């Protein structure tokens, strides 16, 4: 008959098959690094912005609130770029044309990079669209925001200002 050992081996194999779910990147954690291409073909790496406050935004052309967040991100860029804020918007559209059409209607004045395979949102374990991460000068996540609600701009701008304030 089947021995206890065999059953145990079976149970172990079964539990190994259960896929592990990536834990979401939270406040205080290290921001997962990435290097993604721009439309022009240059590679933008997160490390490039070390020493700056980085606002990483995951967006897609099909996401409604993303459309509302773009004018705000442009405004933040204009207001705080000189003080050391870098905005990197990661597009997750499967088709580049969709993203290009969106950008035609909603021009971005900040860095836009493309990740159609979705490796970076997977690394950040993005829970909803859009999702944004405020990363401090040393590369740690300082704030996470899911969605772009009415109160999001105020909260995020406060976070950005606090990080940019001279210490």
């Amino acid at each position: 008959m089947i021995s206890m050992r065999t059953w145990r081996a079976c149970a172990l194999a079964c539990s190994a098959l259960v896929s592990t779910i990536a834990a979401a990147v939270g406040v205080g954690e290290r921001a997962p690094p990435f290097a993604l291409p721009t439309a022009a073909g240059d590679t933008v790496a997160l490390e490039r912005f070390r020493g700056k406050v980085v606002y990483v935004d995951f967006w897609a052309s099909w996401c409604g609130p993303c459309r509302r967040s773009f004018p705000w991100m442009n405004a933040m860029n204009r207001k705080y770029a000189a003080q050391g804020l870098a905005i990197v918007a990661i597009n997750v559209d499967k088709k580049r044309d969709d993203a290009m059409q969106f950008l035609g209607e909603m021009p971005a004045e900040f860095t836009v990079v493309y990740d159609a395979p979705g490796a970076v949102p997977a690394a950040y374990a993005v829970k909803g669209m859009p999702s944004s991460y405020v990363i401090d000068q040393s590369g740690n996540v300082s704030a996470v925001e899911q969605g772009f609600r009415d109160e999001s701009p105020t909260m995020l701008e406060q976070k950005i200002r606090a990080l940019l304030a001279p210490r």
Partner: protein
Amino acid sequence: MRARVGVVQAGLWTLCVLALLATAGCATISPPQPWEKGQLAKREMQFDADPLDAKATQHIYTSKEGAGGGYGVGGGGCGCN
């Protein structure tokens, strides 16, 4: 007798392997991640293709049902409430 035990054991092993394969099969079907919902976000993928039409249908449905009342209460069914 011994041969029979062997057959039973082999059968159980096969079952075990098949069960494992079935589990693995389920693991490959995972719901789309939040950043993979581009197709699902399309208008033609909604349950109600036309939001205005859906709203009107819902309005008529609730007013008719509301007019139905409980036991034996006659409702107008005019859709006016």
